[in-house]
C-alpha cells in the first residue's frame, strides 16, 4: 500500500534547487515582453488615448488599446474581454498594453501613454444600509440565497439567552508568491505556458474569448506557484499575451503581473457584513439561529459568495433563517479564495457561539456538542460520516483545554479559544460546472506505468498523492509509477477547486486503473493503455458528504500595546482517509497559517475617493510571516468516508483556513475580555476598546 505513507514530495528536489519551471520561466526563443497599463479611475470612459510617443520608442513592437486590439467573442465573460471598449468598470482595469523587446522598454513606453477619461461617480464601499442591496437569484455555488424554517422571531423573543451581533470582514487578496504570468506563442496554433490551477478549464475560456478552436490551443502548467483560487480563470493578461503574439507575427510574448497589478486584476475575497442572532435555552440548546450576510459584488459581473450556507446544517435548531444580500460596487469582481464563504461565515457564527457560551456560562465545547445535529437539516439527509464531536474532544485533550484559565505572564494576557467548522463537498462543481475528470494509464514497458491527467499541483502535493493512489489502484510499487499533470494534451480534468482535486482526479485514476486491468490484465504488453473517468458521486442523493474540524488557539495580548501573538494553534480534522500524511499536514498547517493571517493582518485599505485599494503591496497588505507562526499543528481522525469515493478521502486543504479566525478572536476575548467583531484583530482595536470600557 502506498496510500497512508508519508512519501517525500515528488517535485521537491526541483523546487529546493529552483529548477522547476513556472509559467514565466519556460525558455522560448526571442521573446517580447508585455506590460499592462491600468485605469486610474474606477468608473467612466476612456475618451482619448495617445500612444504616439510610446510607439515611437525604439524597441516597442506594438501598443494595444481598445482601438487596436483584435475583437474578442462578445459572449465571453466580461472579466476576460480585455480592450473591447473604452468603458471603465473598476480601478486598475487594463486599458492598454505595450509589447517591447525588453521589460524595461515596455515599462518605459507604458509611462509615455497619455490617457484622458470621462469619469463618472463611483461607489466602492460596502455598508449594511446601502440603498441598493438586492437579493441574488442564487449564491455562486448554486444554492438558494435564502432559507427559513420555523419561527425565528418568536423563538428569539422568548429565548432565555440571546446573542445579536454584527461581524465584518475586509476584502482579502489571494496573493500567491508567484505573480500571475503567461508565456504565449500564437503562430499557427497557440501555445500558452500559464500559471493555471486548471489547464482544461483555462483552455475552454481562452478558446471562447479568442474565438479559436480549443483543440488548437496547447496549455502547459507543470508547476504553479500558489493559486488559492486566483488562477482558475483565463485572465485579461493571458488573453492579451495571446493577442500580442498574434499581432507580432507569432513571436513569444511574456507577461507577469506586478505585485501591485495583482491587487486590481486577480480578484479578491469579498468583504462581508454579517448579523448573527442566536437564541438558546438554559441548557444551551439553540432555539433559533439567524445568519444574515451582506456582501459586495461587482456592478459589471455578478459573483455572490455563499457566506451563510454552512449555517443551514452546522448545528441543530428548530428555527432557522439564513439570507444573502449583495450590493453591486465599482470594484473588480470578487472570486473564490481558499475556503470561499466558509472563511468569513465561520468567523461570524463561531464568534457568536463563543459569545453565547459566555452568556450562558457554559464551556464553548460543551455548547457545540449540545447542538450537534443528527442529520443535515438543509437536505434532511444523513451524514456520510460526521465526527465533529470527536474532533472537539480529541483537540481538547491534546491542547490541554480543561481548566482553561486566563492568566497573566508579565505584560502578557493569555487566553484560549476554540472554534468548530464544516467544509461542504461541492459535488455540484462536477455535475453543474466543470464536468467529469479523466485519467489514463499506460504500460510503458518493464512493469512501469505512466499515469496522466490534466490535473494541477499548485503546491497541494497532488502530484505525489495521485501517484500513491495510482500505485495502489494498479497494485504496483510507487516506484513503478510516473505521473504527468498540468498539460491540456493530457486527459481532461477539472481545475483544482473546493479542495476536491485529489479526490476527483484520484477517482479518475482509480477508474482508469480498473479499466486498464480489465482490458489488459496483470501482464500487459508495452503500450497498453486505458482511460477512466470520475463523473460524479452516486451517493449524493442519499447522504451529505461534508468535512469537519475543530481549531484551538492560544492568544497572548500585550496589556499596554495591544500586540497580539498566537503561541499555539491546533487543528483536528475529520477529512476521511489521508493519502499522504506529510503533504496533507503541510496543506492543513498552511491553511491554518492563512487563517491566522486573516485573523491578525489582512485588510484592504480602500480609498473611497480614488476608488482603489491603496495598500497594494506586501508593505501595505500584510500577510503572516515566519515571526507570526509559533507552535502550529494539525492532526486528523483518519476515518475513511465510505461514501466519498473508493479511497475514502474527503476535501482537505481548505479546512485549515476556516476555523482559525474565530478561534483566535475567541482566545483574544478570553485573554482580555475584549470582543473584536471586525477582522483583522489589530492592536489599535484592542487598545481603543480597552479605553472605551
Amino acid at each position, binding site marked *: 500500500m502506498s496510500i497512508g505513507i508519508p512519501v517525500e514530495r515528488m517535485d521537491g528536489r526541483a523546487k529546493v534547487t529552483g529548477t522547476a519551471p513556472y509559467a*514565466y520561466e519556460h525558455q522560448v526563443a526571442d521573446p517580447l515582453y508585455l506590460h499592462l497599463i491600468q485605469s486610474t479611475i474606477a468608473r467612466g470612459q476612456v475618451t482619448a488615448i495617445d500612444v504616439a510617443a510610446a510607439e515611437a520608442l525604439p524597441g516597442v513592437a506594438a501598443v494595444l488599446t481598445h482601438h487596436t486590439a483584435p475583437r474578442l467573442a462578445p459572449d465571453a465573460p466580461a472579466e476576460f474581454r480585455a480592450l473591447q471598449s473604452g468603458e471603465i468598470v473598476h480601478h486598475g482595469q487594463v486599458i492598454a498594453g505595450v509589447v517591447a523587446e525588453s521589460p524595461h522598454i515596455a515599462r518605459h513606453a507604458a509611462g509615455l501613454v497619455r490617457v484622458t477619461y470621462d469619469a463618472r461617480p463611483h461607489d466602492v464601499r460596502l455598508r449594511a444600509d446601502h440603498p441598493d442591496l438586492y437579493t441574488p437569484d442564487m449564491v455562486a455555488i448554486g444554492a438558494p440565497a435564502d432559507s427559513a424554517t420555523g419561527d425565528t422571531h418568536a423563538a428569539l423573543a422568548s429565548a432565555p439567552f440571546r446573542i445579536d451581533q454584527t461581524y465584518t470582514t475586509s476584502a482579502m487578496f489571494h496573493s500567491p*508568491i508567484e505573480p500571475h504570468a503567461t508565456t504565449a506563442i500564437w503562430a499557427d496554433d497557440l501555445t500558452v505556458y500559464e500559471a493555471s490551477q486548471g489547464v482544461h478549464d483555462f483552455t475552454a475560456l481562452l478558446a471562447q474569448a479568442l474565438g479559436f478552436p480549443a483543440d488548437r490551443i496547447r496549455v502547459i502548467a507543470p508547476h504553479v506557484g500558489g493559486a488559492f483560487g486566483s488562477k482558475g480563470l483565463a485572465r485579461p493578461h493571458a488573453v492579451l499575451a495571446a493577442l500580442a503574439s498574434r499581432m507580432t507575427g507569432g513571436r513569444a510574448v511574456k507577461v507577469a503581473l506586478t505585485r501591485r497589478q495583482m491587487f486590481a486584476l486577480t480578484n479578491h475575497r469579498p468583504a462581508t457584513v454579517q448579523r448573527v442572532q442566536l437564541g438558546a435555552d438554559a441548557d444551551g440548546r439553540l432555539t433559533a439561529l439567524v445568519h444574515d450576510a451582506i456582501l459586495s459584488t461587482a456592478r459589471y459581473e455578478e459573483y455572490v459568495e455563499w457566506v451563510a450556507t454552512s449555517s443551514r446544517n452546522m448545528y441543530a435548531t428548530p428555527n432557522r433563517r439564513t439570507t444573502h444580500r449583495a450590493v453591486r460596487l465599482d470594484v473588480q469582481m470578487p472570486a473564490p479564495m481558499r475556503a470561499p464563504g466558509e472563511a468569513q461565515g465561520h468567523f461570524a457564527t463561531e464568534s457568536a457561539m463563543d459569545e453565547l457560551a459566555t452568556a450562558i456560562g457554559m464551556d464553548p465545547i460543551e455548547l457545540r456538542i449540545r447542538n450537534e445535529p443528527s442529520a443535515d437539516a438543509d437536505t434532511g439527509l444523513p451524514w456520510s460520516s460526521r465526527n465533529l464531536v470527536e474532533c472537539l474532544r480529541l483537540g481538547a485533550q491534546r491542547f490541554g483545554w480543561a481548566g482553561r484559565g486566563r492568566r497573566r505572564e508579565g505584560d502578557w494576557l493569555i487566553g484560549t479559544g476554540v472554534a468548530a467548522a464544516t467544509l461542504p463537498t461541492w459535488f455540484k462543481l462536477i455535475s453543474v460546472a466543470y464536468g467529469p475528470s479523466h485519467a489514463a494509464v499506460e504500460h510503458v514497458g518493464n512493469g512501469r506505468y505512466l499515469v496522466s491527467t490534466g490535473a494541477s499541483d499548485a503546491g497541494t502535493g497532488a502530484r505525489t498523492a495521485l501517484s500513491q493512489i495510482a500505485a495502489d489502484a494498479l497494485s504496483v510499487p510507487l516506484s513503478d509509477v510516473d505521473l504527468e499533470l498540468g498539460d491540456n494534451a493530457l486527459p481532461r480534468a477539472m481545475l483544482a477547486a473546493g479542495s476536491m482535486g485529489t479526490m476527483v482526479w484520484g477517482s479518475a485514476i482509480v477508474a482508469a486503473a480498473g479499466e486498464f486491468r480489465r482490458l489488459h490484465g496483470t501482464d500487459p504488453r508495452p503500450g497498453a493503455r486505458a482511460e477512466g473517468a470520475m463523473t460524479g458521486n452516486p451517493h449524493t442523493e442519499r447522504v451529505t458528504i461534508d468535512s469537519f474540524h475543530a481549531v484551538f488557539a492560544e492568544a497572548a495580548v500585550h496589556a499596554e500595546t495591544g500586540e497580539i501573538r498566537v503561541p499555539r494553534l491546533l487543528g483536528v480534522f475529520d477529512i476521511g482517509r489521508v493519502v499522504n500524511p506529510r503533504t496533507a499536514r503541510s496543506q492543513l498547517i498552511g491553511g491554518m497559517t492563512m487563517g491566522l493571517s486573516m485573523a491578525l493582518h489582512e485588510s484592504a485599505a480602500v480609498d473611497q475617493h480614488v476608488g482603489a485599494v491603496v495598500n497594494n503591496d506586501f508593505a501595505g497588505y500584510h500577510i503572516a510571516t515566519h515571526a507570526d507562526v509559533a507552535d502550529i499543528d494539525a492532526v486528523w481522525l483518519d476515518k475513511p468516508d465510505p461514501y466519498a469515493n473508493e479511497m475514502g478521502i474527503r476535501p482537505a486543504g481548505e479546512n485549515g483556513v476556516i476555523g482559525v479566525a474565530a478561534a483566535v478572536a475567541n482566545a483574544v476575548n478570553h485573554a482580555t475580555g475584549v470582543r473584536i467583531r471586525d477582522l483583522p484583530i489589530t492592536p489599535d482595536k484592542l487598545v481603543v476598546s480597552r479605553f472605551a470600557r
Partner: protein
Amino acid sequence: MTRTNPVLADIAIHVDGDKRQLSVDTRTTLLDALRDQLGVTSPKKGCDHGQCGACTVLLDGRRVVSCLALAVANDGAEIVTAQGLADGDDLHPVQQAFLDRDGLQCGYCTPGQVCSAVGMLREVQEGWPSHVTGDLAAPVELTDEEIRERMSGNLCRCGAYANIVAAIREAAE
C-alpha cells in the same frame, strides 16, 4: 529632449561558478539580468520591491534580495543561487532538510528561503545579533525565535513556515 535609447553596459558576473558576460540596460536589476538575460530562473520574482524575499541569492557570500540590486552595480560579483548550492545530485544540507521536513509547497518562495537560510546561518555563526537577541555580546543561540525573526523577510503564502523553521533547525545541528 528625452533620451529614448537604453544605456547599455558590459559586465561580467559569476553565477553558480560560471563566468557570464552580458550587456545590460542600466535599469536592469540583478534579478532580471539573471532571469531574463541569462535564463537563470532559480531566483524568483514575487514582488520586485524587496518585500517578499523570493529573489534572495548569495552575493559575495551574503544574502541579498536581487530585485533591489542593479546588475550594472555588481560587475564582477560572485552570485550563488539555490541551483548552485546543490552539487549536482547532492543537495546542500539546508535543501535536504527542506525536503525531509517538507518545508515547501508550491515551491515558488523556496529557492529564496533556502538561500536566505544559508546566508542567515552564516550571519549567526559570525555572531550578528537580531532584533530578538537578548545579549548582544554573547554568541547567538539559534533558537526557533531567532530563526523566525531572521527569516521573516521571506514570505511564504502557502504557509510552510513551521516546516521551514524545523528544516533550518535540523540543518544547523
